[in-house]
């Protein structure tokens, strides 16, 4: 492997508390292990202001946090600052928090190139790692590794707004496009990625979450007493479902099945504990529970500190996990590691993760879920079998050092196979370009010029747009303004092999904001053709491309 002196890690999606779900737990655990594994490598953790201090526990001689201004903070700076401000405000007012994770990346796109200096270029990183998928800080010439957690928006589009789906799609497609290597957190995710996307299968590896022991020995008897007193619980007399109140977590089904099980003779003292951060969906689920006459039988403790959470899971009679979709399913293996019997859905990644060590049920069939609840509480022989099998299965996911080594090997693969690649980005498949068209040349390219046919449609909101090119050697070439309805062939001479040309277009617009269409993309002009010209007879078509 070539040497990895510096690795930049994009932790800017991390929000305070539990709003990122399992992805945050994973990213933090992995960074800590990587830093131990490679003491001579410097890790630069990019953070947003809201979580910057919270992450100070990651600091180490070879680990340093860098606050990325603008992300997650309210920065009033001229027009862009105001736009950012209003966008952030909108994010936090209207959308569930986990969506804000993705949205903050969109905000980053908006501000990148304006007043945020590209941190990756600044830090002279040898590799950029994006544990939250979107390669927002991608820099030409720096190999990039991303982790893909799920592609739920493709399977359950109704659980996402159109805008949110578009943003998730952008994150995934950019990951495909810019990553030298991709980690999928389960075979289920890897197969979905390969089914939906173009990446070379060799570039996509499954690396399971290995941190099943996260909760082991995490609590004292005081923690335990505290959480039981607070919630009015007794050990071994409740089932636990650790999940935020996201739509795919299927709480409606769980409540229905729990009420059915009670009607079928589930001992009256058995309660159900649904952890998860408060939000409007939780209010709805709590109200449902009341109306289903489960008041007092279903407990909603809200987000718990790690020690309390560990104590709660560790003393549960069982873990019931009726989720409709998971990329991995960390709580399942965490409970297994603690010797808690598990019953979980038979969908998405869960059969792969549970692998015979849990009772599986169809999370769409109330009868099956109710039956699973009954057996989890009352079938002593099965409980013992799952407990034993679960502990063994959890062993497979216990070694977070091994997970770090797998990632380290993937970084090495990315570095070794990275040669810089010729590509055009910033142009959508339908030809619309965003505010910047990025042309990267391979290290061995010897193109002389690039030719681009562009069109400004007659209904463009602005009378004219400016187009100019900035090259990696700093030269800038301006062109005459492109008028509405005008079609033109632009030709720029290129400075040499391996360079980068940024073709910028201003102003751009978002059709949805003009009320003219549901299109949420940021658009500028239409690219009809783009070719590299090595000589008059040797032309290489970059757009339209045969395949993405």
């Amino acid at each position, binding site marked *: 492997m070539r040497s990895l002196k510096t690795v930049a890690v994009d932790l800017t999606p991390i929000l305070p508390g539990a709003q990122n779900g399992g992805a945050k737990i994973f990213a933090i655990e992995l960074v800590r292990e990587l830093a131990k594994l490679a003491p001579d490598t410097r890790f630069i953790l990019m953070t947003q202001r809201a979580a910057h201090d919270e992450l100070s526990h990651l600091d180490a001689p070879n680990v340093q946090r860098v606050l990325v201004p603008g992300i997650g903070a309210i920065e009033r700076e001229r027009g862009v600052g105001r736009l950012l401000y209003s966008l952030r405000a909108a994010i936090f007012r209207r959308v569930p928090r986990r969506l804000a994770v993705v949205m903050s990346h969109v905000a980053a796109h908006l501000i990148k190139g304006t007043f945020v200096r590209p941190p990756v270029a600044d830090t002279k990183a040898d590799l950029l790692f994006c544990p939250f998928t979107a390669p927002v800080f991608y820099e030409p010439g720096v190999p990039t590794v991303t982790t893909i957690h799920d592609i739920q928006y493709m399977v359950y589009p109704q659980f996402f707004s159109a805008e949110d789906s578009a943003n998730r799609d952008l994150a995934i497609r950019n990951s495909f496009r810019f990553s030298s290597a991709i980690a999928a957190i389960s075979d289920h995710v890897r197969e979905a990625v390969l089914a939906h996307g173009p990446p070379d299968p060799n570039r996509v590896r499954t690396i399971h979450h290995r941190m099943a022991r996260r909760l082991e020995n995490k609590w004292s008897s005081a923690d335990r007493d505290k959480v039981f007193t607070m919630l009015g619980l007794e050990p071994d007399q409740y089932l636990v479902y650790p999940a935020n109140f996201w739509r795919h977590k299927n709480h409606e089904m769980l409540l229905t099945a729990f009420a059915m099980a009670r009607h079928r003779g589930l001992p009256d003292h058995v309660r159900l504990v649904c952890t998860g951060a408060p939000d409007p969906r939780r209010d709805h689920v709590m109200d449902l529970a009341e109306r*289903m*006459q489960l*008041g007092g039988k279903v407990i909603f403790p809200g987000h718990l500190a790690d020690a309390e959470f560990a104590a709660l899971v560790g003393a549960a009679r069982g873990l019931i996990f009726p989720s409709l979709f998971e990329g991995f399913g960390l709580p399942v293996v965490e409970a297994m590691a603690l010797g808690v019997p598990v019953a979980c859905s038979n969908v998405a990644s869960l059969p792969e993760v549970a692998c015979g060590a849990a009772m599986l049920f169809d999370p769409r*069939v109330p009868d099956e879920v109710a039956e699973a609840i009954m057996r989890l509480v009352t079938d002593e022989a099965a409980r013992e079998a799952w407990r034993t099998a679960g502990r063994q299965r959890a062993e497979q996911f216990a070694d977070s050092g091994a997970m770090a080594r797998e990632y380290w090997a993937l970084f090495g693969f990315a570095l070794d196979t990275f040669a810089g690649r010729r590509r055009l980005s910033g142009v959508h498949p339908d030809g619309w370009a965003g505010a910047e068209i990025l042309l990267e040349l391979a290290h061995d390219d010897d193109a002389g010029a690039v030719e681009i046919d562009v069109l400004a449609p007659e209904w463009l909101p602005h009378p004219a747009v400016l187009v100019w090119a900035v090259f990696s050697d700093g030269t800038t070439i301006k062109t005459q303004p492109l008028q509405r309805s005008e079609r033109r062939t632009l030709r720029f001479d290129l400075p040499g092999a391996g360079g980068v040309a940024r073709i910028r277009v201003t102003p751009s617009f978002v059709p949805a904001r003009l009320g003219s269409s549901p299109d949420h993309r940021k658009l500028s002009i239409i690219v009809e053709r783009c070719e590299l010209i090595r000589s008059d007879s040797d032309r290489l078509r970059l757009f339209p491309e045969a395949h993405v």
Partner: protein
Amino acid sequence: MHIGFDVSQTGAGKAGCGYFADAMARALVDVAPEHSYAFYPSFGDFYLDPKIPARNPYPGRAVHYGPRFLTRESAAAFWNAARLEQALHHPDIIHANNFWCPTQVRQSRVVYTLHDLGFTIQPDWTTEANRVGCFDGVVRAAAYADWIIAVSDASRRHFLKLFPFFPEDRVAVVHPCSRFHEPLGKGVAPKSMAHVEPGAFWLSVGTIEPRKNQIRLAEAYAAYLRAGGPAMPLVFAGGEGWLMNDFHHRLEELGIASNVICTGYVSDENLVWLYRNCYANLYPSLFEGFGLPILEGMQFGAPTISSNSSSLPEVGGDAALLLDPEATEAWTAAMLMLARDRTQRERMSADAIARSALFDGVSSARKLEAVYQAALAQPKRQIQTRTRG
């Protein structure tokens, strides 16, 4: 009484749910014209038909129409608003017919039509998007509706099994009725039936989809032919549903492709002709909320062999031959028997007409009105207060 009634699924291309709402709306203004009605062409944010006709399909003395929405977002904003009742002018009754159920209603009595719970038995019978929407709606109804109208006693029992906390005395059965009214007419033969003699074909009506179990019927029919049953063609009348790309392939494999006619989607006129002229109507469905195609067939005197699953015995009663939908041999035997016994066929035809007369829209509408009166006379459903411990 001021009755708000969801007619969102009564537009073109309606299915069972839409026919029920349409028939009840029509019959209600007829049998109870003293009430005022608001018909909602949009209801909730699950089902949306922006193309629902803007005409007045239910003429009456005091009939109004609710707002229409072109997008799901605008419908969601209206129907999920905290002050929904005010926006609807405080109806006494809000009757949901499309699986969606409001949760914020404080005064109006919410009446909810339960069409079918098949998606809780075999989720793959429908799309996942539809399953999620239907389940969500039914759970909300179990928690927030004042009354449930089940379209069959089987559906009523199924609902109470899933939601045992729901008060039994607030779940009523109101049967749907046939969509065909007097005068019945002779109907029109579908083009694909040009070469088939009236009275000499087996009929099976319904969208071609796994739940309707047409593949097993085709297998039973193949065995019937092998056993020397009279070579009457088997006619599948219904559009191609989903997950059935291999249906035609299966017919080839069974060697009956030339004996089977698939008409595709048929008009009401075609359906009347098919029911009137079939040798018998075969309905092997694995699960139904009610089972309109057997009722409608019986109305036209079609001898009926039906599945004995879910609600179908309630509809077919003694007039139909009821068989286990998975017991292919039993279907073969019944077809062989019926094909050779004309007397039995004629008796079943007469029984069918008599049986179908038990289901009519007017008595269903009267039952519905009685539920509205009862709902209004009672307080809203009380929710047990929280007990800790």
